[in-house]
């Protein structure tokens, strides 16, 4: 193990380390702690210039309910779910198929197709934006959650295919071979033999894509115009303009907007990190 395990070091090093850990964490999360404390301050604190001192009151319920009463944030959150959940289902579903095809079958253009997905995943959004917006307009899906979902599903299929293909490559191929010898059809092999083994990959990808799409801001801005389709990221930008100096409300709204992916992360931590660090150990 590197660095040397702390238990094997001198007692004074151990003591410093135990003390340094929480201090470093507080410094690292200082901006976040600041915004969390601000979100429960009474607005009189901010008016009196008490930005960093102990809050003069605990206004959690007042501030958070004001956010919901004075803004469309409830709608924005709902819109975010309406975009995020179908995208997760669509992109993960499609990539189970593409990933399987690229991992299991040997055909001449296999690597070309695979690297098309990988490369497409890295392109800047701006090179897609004008044609994608025009296409969405001509399909009558502009300013709808369906339009956003269609694009997100297509784009995320790139990353998901990379992920699924590498995951399936790691499965024992003998399983598929013996099923073929038994005369099981290709679809049944996929559905009954491989799919059940893909559960961890599906879980990992689902949390990752959920977070990516929930946090998307560019496409939310470009493809959604009105409040009834706007996801929460684009909505936050609007609220920032609306509330200007009411930082206790902006802070509370930020916390609300950040909550779903944070909850997802803490509930599914193992899968989340397994997904994110794919490839960080081999190769």
């Amino acid at each position, binding site marked *: 193990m*590197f*660095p040397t395990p702390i238990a094997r070091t001198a007692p004074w090093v151990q003591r410093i*380390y*135990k003390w340094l850990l929480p201090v470093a*964490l507080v410094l*690292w*999360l*200082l*901006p*976040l702690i*600041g915004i969390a404390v601000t979100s429960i301050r009474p607005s009189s604190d901010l008016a009196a210039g008490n930005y*960093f001192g102990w809050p003069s009151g605990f206004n959690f319920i007042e501030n958070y309910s004001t956010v919901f009463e004075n803004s469309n944030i409830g709608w924005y959150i709902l819109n975010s779910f309406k975009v995020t959940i179908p995208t997760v289902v669509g992109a993960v579903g*499609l990539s189970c*198929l593409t990933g*399987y*095809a690229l991992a299991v079958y040997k*055909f001449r253009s296999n*690597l070309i197709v695979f*690297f*098309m997905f*990988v*490369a*497409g995943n*890295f*392109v*800047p*959004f*701006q090179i*897609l934006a*004008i*044609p*994608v*917006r*025009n296409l969405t307009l001509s399909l009558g899906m502009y300013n709808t959650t369906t339009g956003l979902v*269609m694009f997100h*599903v297509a*784009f995320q*299929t790139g990353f998901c295919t990379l992920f699924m293909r590498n995951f399936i490559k790691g499965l024992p191929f003998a399983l598929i071979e013996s099923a073929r010898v038994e005369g099981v059809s*290709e679809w049944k092999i996929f559905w009954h033999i491989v799919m059940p083994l893909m559960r961890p990959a599906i879980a990992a990808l689902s949390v990752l894509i959920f*977070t990516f799409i929930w*946090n998307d*801001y*560019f496409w939310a801005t470009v493809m959604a115009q009105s409040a009834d389709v706007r996801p929460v990221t684009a909505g*936050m*930008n609007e609220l*920032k303009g609306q509330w200007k100096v009411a930082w206790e409300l*902006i802070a509370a709204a*930020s916390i609300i*907007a*950040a909550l779903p992916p*944070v909850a997802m*992360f803490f509930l599914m*931590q193992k899968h989340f*990190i397994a997904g*994110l*660090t794919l*490839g*960080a*150990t081999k*190769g």
Partner: protein
Amino acid sequence: MAGLRRKRWNQRTYAPWLFLAPGMLMFSIYVVFPIFQSIWISFYDWDGLGPKTWVGLDNYANLLDDESFYTSLQNNLIWLLLYLLAIPAGLAVALFLNQSVTGIRLYKSLFFFPFVISQVVVGLIFSWFYAPDFGLLPKIIGFLTGSEIAVLADERYATYGVIAAGLWPQIAYCMILYLTGLNNINPEQVEAARMDNAKGWSMLWHIIIPQLRPATFIAMVVTVIGALRSFDLISIMTVGGPYGSTRVLSYFMYEQALSEYGVAMGYGAAIAVVLFAIMLVFISIFIVRMLQQERNG
């Protein structure tokens, strides 16, 4: 029997294409074709609604005379260089946290936290952190130097202020990659090197970092792509200002072609093509490297 074998052979020939069809179709329509369409649009003068007029390379020639283009390009370079600091910084944090004391798992999760939050919220948090009159940073600077600085309102510092906000989640990302890498280091090699009296820096440099190469590669990929994709933070924190000094190509393109007043589709497409060309250099390097790994095993 022969008939059966041929049927199975056929099935195995067309099956992959059936599995690929829906995904490839979607990906082609929304990702592959639009790239070529954008390149095509960049040769036109077009307001997005009326007829297109062919102007050849005029949009690109205009770019070369546009000061905003050079500002954006320069800022993209600054982003790229400073963002790379996330890699050593992430490694440093990972080394700090790679211990097995009680509660370390929770510490690791909380250090990773900034990456989970959307960049919109990160941007708001840092806007607040930098805000003149009441932000924490001006207070600290004021305490140390006697004069407060409004980071985001000052042309000299605004871009660096935005990049610092971006580094926060990016360091967390690199940290988690390195923690996973450190977890998979060959302990025998480390112990053998310890026997040979290797420690500290020489151990890190000669034994640990070479074994972390896969993690470093991924950290490079996500950091370079992240730096060149920067858009959210600029839009939230500075809207490209003050006086356009924090523009990068992605934001400049948005202003020209996608924002409320942006109707210069051809010009915007040309900016996008330049950004795409820059990223293509990196994408090619990454793909070649991944292809080599693919061939080797």
